[in-house]
């Protein structure tokens, strides 16, 4: 069995960044296993611009963002195996994979990085009743057909879900000549970026119907029409608001699910909110030396933060192998409090070393303005940061300074609350 210092599963932005950062920290014998025929993950099909502003300080398209890492990998000693599907990873970090040419591969990693990304929710996940004709695709599938493989999925399109993928595909279909009839959103607000709503829908007069959903699908061989209804606050269709929209294509952009089948088979528990594994500040799971980063851990809205997170895991793995880590006397739980749905990481297990702070990623429950992100322990505030606006669709981050964390702390709560009035007059 071939042994590696690090086996990375998935060559998307997370896997690439983790491997490169590990190598920069002195690690050798690294392999990345990728099931697709090319590396870069979902980025090569995301041909639109808007990537890289945080990480590179310039605006790139998806393929360009991926290329920065692909190019660096080509100059590295990191081994990359494409068309290689990992079937199993066990708790001893032994990996079984299938490669198109080499057949069954057995590898062992001193560390493993889980970087399998996420997949899209389907019609079955959201249970839309009706016929089962062709022409119903996830937005990402349509994106791959249109941008990589060169097929146009249809001519008269309805899109369910106004997340960024849905908005981006509305523009893409329109630009390629399709008639995009409407984008439907069950929530009272779009979860996509304002910029995407303006540049993808408003620019082309594509209607966004908030608090609307699809209640029926009809079509024999091919999709013929969908029934659309307005919903009430409990998401129930309102009688009398139904209308039929003729279309041959329905794109679903209704959420993403971290792809954790391998993690579950290893015996790792999944977080009820993120759908990813539980991790400490090094992005290490409950199995020592097994890390998770990127959308397999929690769904990100910016790839820039995927890269940053994966680098934390990559560096930690190198430190782990080089014995540069020291466990804290007792671990600290980081728990979400008021208006916070989850945090990553969920624990702090190692001493800070030369780290000045730990960046905590979180999501807010609902849109709020003029708030503070507050860390507290034993009912006392540690530090708080003002934020002008927070939205559920945009990840919130805040730094927990190492100097303010003491050994007595067992739990640090993170909340997002309305800012107390600044003037008392």
């Amino acid at each position, binding site marked *: 069995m071939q042994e590696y210092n690090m086996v990375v599963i998935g060559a998307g932005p997370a896997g690439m960044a983790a491997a490169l950062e590990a190598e920069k920290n002195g690690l050798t014998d690294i392999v990345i296993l990728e099931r697709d025929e090319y590396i870069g993950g979902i980025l*090569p099909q995301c*041909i*639109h*611009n808007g990537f890289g502003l945080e990480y590179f300080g310039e*605006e790139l*398209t*998806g*393929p*360009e963002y991926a*290329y920065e890492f692909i190019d660096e990998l080509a100059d590295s000693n990191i081994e990359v195996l494409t068309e290689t599907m990992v079937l199993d990873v066990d708790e001893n970090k032994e990996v079984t994979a299938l490669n198109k040419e080499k057949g069954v591969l057995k590898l062992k990693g001193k560390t493993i990085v889980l970087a399998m990304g996420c997949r899209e929710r389907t019609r079955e996940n959201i249970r839309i009743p009706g016929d089962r004709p062709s022409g119903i695709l996830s937005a990402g599938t349509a994106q791959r057909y*249109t*941008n*990589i*493989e*060169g097929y146009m999925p249809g001519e008269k399109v309805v899109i369910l879900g106004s997340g960024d993928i849905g908005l981006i595909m509305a523009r893409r279909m329109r*630009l*390629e*000549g399709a008639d995009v009839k409407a984008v439907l959103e069950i929530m009272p607000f779009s979860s996509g*970026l*304002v*910029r995407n*709503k*303006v*540049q993808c829908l*408003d*620019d082309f007069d594509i209607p966004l119907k908030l608090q609307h959903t699809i209640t029926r699908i009809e079509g024999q061989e091919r999709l013929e029409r969908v029934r659309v209804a307005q919903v009430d606050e409990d998401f129930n269709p309102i009688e009398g608001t139904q209308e039929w929209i003729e279309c041959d294509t329905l794109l679903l952009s209704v959420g993403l699910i971290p792809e954790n089948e391998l993690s579950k088979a290893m015996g790792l528990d999944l977080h009820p909110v993120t759908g990813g594994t539980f991790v400490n500040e090094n992005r290490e799971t409950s199995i020592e030396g097994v890390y998770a980063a990127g959308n397999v851990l929690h769904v990100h809205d910016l790839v820039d933060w995927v890269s940053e997170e994966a680098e934390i895991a990559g560096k930690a793995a190198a430190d782990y192998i080089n014995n540069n880590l020291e466990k804290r006397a007792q671990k600290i739980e980081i728990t979400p409090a008021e208006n916070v749905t989850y945090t990553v990481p969920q624990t702090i297990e190692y001493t800070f070393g030369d780290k000045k702070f730990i960046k905590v990623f979180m999501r807010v429950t609902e849109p709020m*303005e003029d708030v503070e992100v507050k860390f507290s322990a034993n009912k006392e505030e540690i530090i708080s940061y003002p934020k*002008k*606006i927070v*939205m559920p*669709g*945009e990840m919130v981050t805040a730094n927990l300074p190492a100097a303010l964390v003491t050994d007595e702390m067992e739990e640090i709560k993170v909340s997002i609350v309305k800012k107390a009035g600044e003037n008392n007059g």
Partner: protein
Amino acid sequence: MAKNDIICTGCPKGCHVTVEVEDDEIVNVEGYECPTGREYAINEYKNPTRILPSTIRVKKGEFPLVPVKTAQPIPKSLLIKAMDVIAKTEVKAPIKIGDVLIENILDTGVDIVATRNIDKEVEV
């Protein structure tokens, strides 16, 4: 007097900024909450521009398409016309990221450039 409602894309808040225009002159801007909002709305009224990402067909490539973009933003009003030009274009592999595939599209002075390497098709 014409009122133009412009949604600022500067931050998630998405302020609705009203640009009032009289005889082609901006006479009033309101509804913004920061300087970015004001500046954005004025630019967006005077000369709205966009980066256009798309794909071009490739002959004998490892993939049938190469992703492309306008190297700089072009006027919003030309997006659909630019797509017509892009749709009629076909290029031959290999292609390198940054290669100019269409020069000076629609006399805008802006080139269409490749955003991915596309190798030649592997001959079996």
